[in-house]
């Protein structure tokens, strides 16, 4: 049964292949081919260019595999443009004044999805549905399977490179155990819901089929990480999710940057994400190499046994901190967090899937996966993990307090929550292997598990709001100052969002409460009081900014229930509830957002010795401190945003120098991006200039110098070619004379 879980792994790859080589090509070919050039404004020309780019990306995707498909993609990129030109023309003539004609964003639209595109979506959803059902089935059956819980199950392996003596093998190996299974369920479930949800969100995108192909590719990549049995495979998956993330963030390649909202263009955001991740990956791969060189294996179980034996603790700690660098990059921890807010430029379902629930959690998963190595590496490595997480949690939460961009609040919230997970992992391992075994990876992974659901819900809810506002205003609106009072207009979205908000705030008896309080309690239990204060304070901040976002979007001072529900809508148009394809996933995600925390057996399931002590949780006074802090955050947010006029609030902040400065620092995200820009501009580019100078003057100088020397020599020596035959004779016979003398000397004096 477990060995067939490889089917889940390869299912998304199958749907990727079907979409790229089958339905997407069909989608392209089935679009109208008639060329109709309309020149009623300059806009069309630009759109046409955009389509060429779109076709280009498609071509790149297909280029990797089959030239014929490339040709098809290029050929039909032009037809994308044609389809759109017709759409534009129809809109201009007033015959088809629907939602798409006047949108100011540059995402290419089609009037109606072609059959090929729709089938692409169904293929993706159907295959993901089967995968999700199978993974849930595996999870439920593994609950009672103690043999599996102990060892996991082998799935599939392939000897890539085999060395003599079995040391230094390169093996592509997949396995599944309880830790992986917990992650697997999260990935397939969220992925399925996002697939489903995207039907509504991407309803008229010209790149509909491509979007599903990317989603499938991402899911496959993520599953490679989940199933990985060794560092080699996890690194391959690591880079694959980086690629998919790049493709999906930059999905709207035609969109421009919006400097007034501090928003980069998707293309730049994608590049930033990719490059920032590479910085972390350098550390990651160096760490892997240190381990491999010393132990001769990538395999996790072998490493757990062998690495502490053959490596000194200092070396192991160095290696593990380097490995953790990869997690810093992938999970957007300080100082490599800058890419995640920018990544919000991607489509919102992508943000939900990749940049909230799954890929960014891969760093946490990876640390949990090699947790025994961290424990063996000692407190230095563990404290590094915990402190990076703690600082990130507080840092990101303070920024999230003042952000006005709907999705960016969620982005910083994600960073902050990921910090919690690292704190959970780091402090859990402190105190030697015996103590570490008590909770093991439980708290961190538990928070990952619950967070995935409510954060995906938050993002999909946000997407629902943005989608609705897009239809209402024909513009892309992400600023919460242009929302407000949306509660009654889109009740399902608002209600589910409220549930997720309370859950992430640590409101008692919701999913986030259990996982978060466990981590906060654990820091106290391990005596890390500084981390305790940080995490505790952060939970208050979290409650504050989440409720603030909720009220700003869905409520207002003049709304019902004391301003929590409805009120003045500050934007234009008339937003409506999103279609069912989008609300159903919200409702489905609301369920685990409430109940996921009640899986009290999660800790032993992922290998801890003890289960979550629920009774202890409720008798511990620190828990009530935590609840109180969260409630204080919620109450402050309520009074500041639901009772206070926003204009009044603005005046108060502006008139207080300390608050104003603080607001500015938070709003500009501690100027980290500016600092990096300066660093790149003067540090990296300066170094590049030096290196360029080295290249120009030393390397080129050598090459050119040799050439110049030869040229000069040739030019000067040619004057020995006098054209006079007697000079040549002197040369010739002079040579003979010299050789004669040399020969005589040799014969008479040397050879004797």
């Amino acid at each position, binding site marked *: 049964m477990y060995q067939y879980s490889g089917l889940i792994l390869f299912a998304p790859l199958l749907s990727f292949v079907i979409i790229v080589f089958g339905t997407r090509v069909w989608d392209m070919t089935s679009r109208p081919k008639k060329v109709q050039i309309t020149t009623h404004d300059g806009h069309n020309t630009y759109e046409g260019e955009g389509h060429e780019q779109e076709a280009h990306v498609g071509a790149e995707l297909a280029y990797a595999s089959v030239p014929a498909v490339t040709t098809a993609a290029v050929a039909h990129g032009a037809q994308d443009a044609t389809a759109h030109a017709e759409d534009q023309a129809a809109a201009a003539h007033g015959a088809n004044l629907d939602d798409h004609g006047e949108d100011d964003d540059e995402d290419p639209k089609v009037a109606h999805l072609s059959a090929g595109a729709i089938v692409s979506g169904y293929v993706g959803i159907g295959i993901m549905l089967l995968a999700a059902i199978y993974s849930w089935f595996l999870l439920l059956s593994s609950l009672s399977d103690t043999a599996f819980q102990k060892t996991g199950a082998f799935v599939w392996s392939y000897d890539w490179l085999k060395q003599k003596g079995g040391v230094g093998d390169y093996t592509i190996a997949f396995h599944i155990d309880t830790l992986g299974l917990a992650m697997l369920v999260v990935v397939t479930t969220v992925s399925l819901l996002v697939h489903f949800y995207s039907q509504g969100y991407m309803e008229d995108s010209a790149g509909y089929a491509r979007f599903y192909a990317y989603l499938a590719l991402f899911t496959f990549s993520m599953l490679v990480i989940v199933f990985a049995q060794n560092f080699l495979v996890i690194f391959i998956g690591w880079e694959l999710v980086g690629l998919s993330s790049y493709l999906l963030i930059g999905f709207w390649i035609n969109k421009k940057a919006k400097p007034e909202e501090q928003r980069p263009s998707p293309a730049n955001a994608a590049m930033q994400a990719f490059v920032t991740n590479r910085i972390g990956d350098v550390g990651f791969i160096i760490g892997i190499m240190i381990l491999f060189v010393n132990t001769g294996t990538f395999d996790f179980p072998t490493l757990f046994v062998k690495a502490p034996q053959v490596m000194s603790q200092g070396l192991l700690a160095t290696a593990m901190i380097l490995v953790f660098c990869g997690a810093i990059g992938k999970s957007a921890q300080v100082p490599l967090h800058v890419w995640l807010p920018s990544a919000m430029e991607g489509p919102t379902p992508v943000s939900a899937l990749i940049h909230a629930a799954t890929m960014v959690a891969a760093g946490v998963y990876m640390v949990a996966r090699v947790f025994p190595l961290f424990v063996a590496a000692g407190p230095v490595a563990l404290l590094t993990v915990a402190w990076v997480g703690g600082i990130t949690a507080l840092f990101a939460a303070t920024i999230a307090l003042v952000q006005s961009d709907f999705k960016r609040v969620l982005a910083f919230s994600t960073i902050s929550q990921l910090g919690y997970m690292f704190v959970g992992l780091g402090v859990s391992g402190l105190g030697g292997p015996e103590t570490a075994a008590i909770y093991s990876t439980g708290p961190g992974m538990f928070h990952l598990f619950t967070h995935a659901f409510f954060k995906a819900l938050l993002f999909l809810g946000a997407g629902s709001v943005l989608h609705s506002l897009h239809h209402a205003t024909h513009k892309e609106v992400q600023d919460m100052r242009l929302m407000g009072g949306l509660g009654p207009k889109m009740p399902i979205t608002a209600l589910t969002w409220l549930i997720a908000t309370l859950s992430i705030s640590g409101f008692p008896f919701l999913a986030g409460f259990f996982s978060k309080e466990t981590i906060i309690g654990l820091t106290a239990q391990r005596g890390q009081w500084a981390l305790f204060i940080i995490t505790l304070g952060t939970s208050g901040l979290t409650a504050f900014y989440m409720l603030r976002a909720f009220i700003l979007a869905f409520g207002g001072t003049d709304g019902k229930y004391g301003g929590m529900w409805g009120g003045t809508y500050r934007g234009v148009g008339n937003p409506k509830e999103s279609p069912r394809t989008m609300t159903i996933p919200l409702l489905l995600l609301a369920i685990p957002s409430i109940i996921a925390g009640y899986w009290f057996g999660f800790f032993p399931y992922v290998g801890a010795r003890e289960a979550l002590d629920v009774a202890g949780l409720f008798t511990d006074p620190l828990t009530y401190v935590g609840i109180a802090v969260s409630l204080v955050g919620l109450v402050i947010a309520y009074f500041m945003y639901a009772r206070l006029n926003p204009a009044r609030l603005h005046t108060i902040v502006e008139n207080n120098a300390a608050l104003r400065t603080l607001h500015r620092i938070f709003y500009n995200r501690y100027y980290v991006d500016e600092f990096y820009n300066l660093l790149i501009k003067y540090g990296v580019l300066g170094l590049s200039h030096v290196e360029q100078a080295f290249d120009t003057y030393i390397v080129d100088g050598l090459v050119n110098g040799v050439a110049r020397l030869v040229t000069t020599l040739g030019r000067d020596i040619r004057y020995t*070619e*006098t054209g006079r035959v007697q000079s040549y004779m002197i040369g010739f016979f002079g040579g003979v004379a010299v050789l004669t003398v040399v020969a005589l000397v040799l014969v008479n004096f040397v050879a004797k």
Partner: protein
Amino acid sequence: MGLSLNHFLVLGAMLFCIGLYGAIAKRNAIAVLMGIEIMLNAVNITMVAFSFYNHVNANGVNYSGLLTGQIFAIFIITVAAAEAAVALAMVISIYRKRNTVDVSDIDMMKW
């Protein structure tokens, strides 16, 4: 003391050197040619001398009838005659075009 091979060889060598000096040091093209003729003669003398003394080898076989050196000398004379004819034709041709027979001035093939 009678004549030996070395007498002729040294004579040929001295003659060759004198011819070489003439060929290198004279500026008149015809004088250069004369030097070359002297060199050819020096070689011929050496050839014939070797032919004369190559009468018997270490095993007592008689080589007297071979006359290889003399045959070579004949061919050298033949070629020398041909060379002299062509070279003098060239000298005359150059003289006609450039009004000089000074080899120092004939340097059209320089760099």
